[in-house]
């Protein structure tokens, strides 16, 4: 369960969002500039809310009244960025193992094999990141976030930089991930169709505020791709 109730001022723009995500996948929907990434950065701990509260399960990650702000490296929240952000000086395999090494977790062969099979990246392990296609980069980024054994996975428009053919290539992996990994996810997108296929609940964000919240169909009922704003 993810509980978020935050306020953050960013220049002239304010983000003020409150919701409780219960399902396996909570969708965040909104046009670009609506404040989705700021919100996700707050959940990851990269951005500190001015006021508010963030908790995953029973663990409080931010509570400004109690003076709690857990730094990102102690949150164990996997984050898949739109631009993948693979480490260019490391091989694919070293990228995948980075989170495990940083958290001092012993190498778990079975878990690694499961993730590598799930994402179909076994053939890429020895490659340098510069030799990967856009879709491959996103799959490796997903694997890297999963292998740190996160308690929550944040996906910030992971298909945003891909063309429609590549999107169709990755979407089945995301569905398998949802059904097989058992890790709760927050999925950010400005594509209602992606969210209808993936998310149980959707938070619709407009200009930093919650405009609608509920199950995917009803929250996205008023939204068509052309009129996303």
């Amino acid at each position, binding site marked *: 369960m993810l509980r978020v109730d935050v306020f953050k001022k960013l220049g002239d723009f304010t983000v003020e969002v409150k919701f409780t995500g219960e399902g396996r996948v909570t969708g965040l929907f909104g046009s670009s500039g609506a404040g989705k990434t700021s919100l996700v950065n707050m959940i990851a701990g990269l951005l500190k809310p001015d006021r508010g509260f963030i908790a995953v399960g029973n663990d409080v990650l931010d509570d400004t009244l109690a003076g709690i702000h857990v730094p990102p*490296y102690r949150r164990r929240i*996997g984050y898949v960025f739109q631009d993948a*952000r693979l480490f260019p*000086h490391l091989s694919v395999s070293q990228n995948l193992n*980075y989170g495990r090494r940083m958290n001092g977790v012993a190498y778990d062969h079975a878990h690694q094999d499961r993730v590598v099979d799930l994402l179909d990246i076994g053939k890429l392990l020895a490659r340098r990141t*510069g*030799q990967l296609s856009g879709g491959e980069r996103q799959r490796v980024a997903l694997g890297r976030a999963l292998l*740190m054994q996160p308690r929550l996975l944040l996906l910030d428009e992971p298909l945003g930089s891909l063309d429609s053919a590549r999107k169709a290539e990755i979407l089945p992996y995301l569905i398998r991930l949802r059904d097989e990994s058992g890790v709760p996810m927050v999925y950010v997108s400005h594509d209602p169709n992606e969210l209808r296929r993936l998310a149980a609940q959707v938070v619709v964000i407009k200009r930093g505020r919650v405009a609608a919240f509920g199950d995917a169909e009803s929250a996205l009922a008023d939204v068509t791709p052309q009129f996303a704003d």
Partner: protein
Amino acid sequence: MFDISPAEWTAVLLSLKVGLVATLVATPFGIAIAWLLARYHFWGKSVVDAAIYLPLVLPPVVTGYLLLLTFGRKGLIGGWLADHLGLVFAFRWTGAALACGIMSFPLLVRPIRLSIEAVDRRLEQAASTLGAAPWKVFLTVTLPLALPGVLAGMVLGFAKAIGEFGATITFVSNIPGETQTISAAIYTLTQVPDGDAAALRLVGVSIVISMIALVTSEWFARRATQRMHGT
């Protein structure tokens, strides 16, 4: 012409030793300062920035004299170090290394600072979400990606240290076998009637050392740039 005498070899090897020690000892400090200047805003930053570049603009003889006053046997720091740690700088090769390290520090710091500034902070954010504490982010992401700049700074610093003359001769004099580096030896040879041939030999040696240093740094930088692009 190419028969380098034992005395000349002594000067060459001493220069290499002084240059290497100066560069290796100065590099960790250079990285720390470069990182502070690249990543933090703090009170008095412009003063620190200026102080580092001071040796580049001050007359070298001034730097050497200031070193003599502070790190000499009777100097505030030099006296303490000699009494407590047995570390003597005045008229020793260690003093030459200290002078070279300080004179070359601006050239060492600048490329490191620029390359740290060029590291994509979004990669550092990604590392922190993967569980890396700030010092681990620095060691596993920032520093490896800034490596071309670190190597360039080290080579530039080394080349400057090898060629340093004014501050060194002022601080530790020109003692053959102890503080007489290539530059000081060439200077001495130009002051004696038939020193031309020997001076030219040392000029040749210093050109060769500088060329090797530059080619090596280029090679490292190319490799590191390839790494940076993930190929």
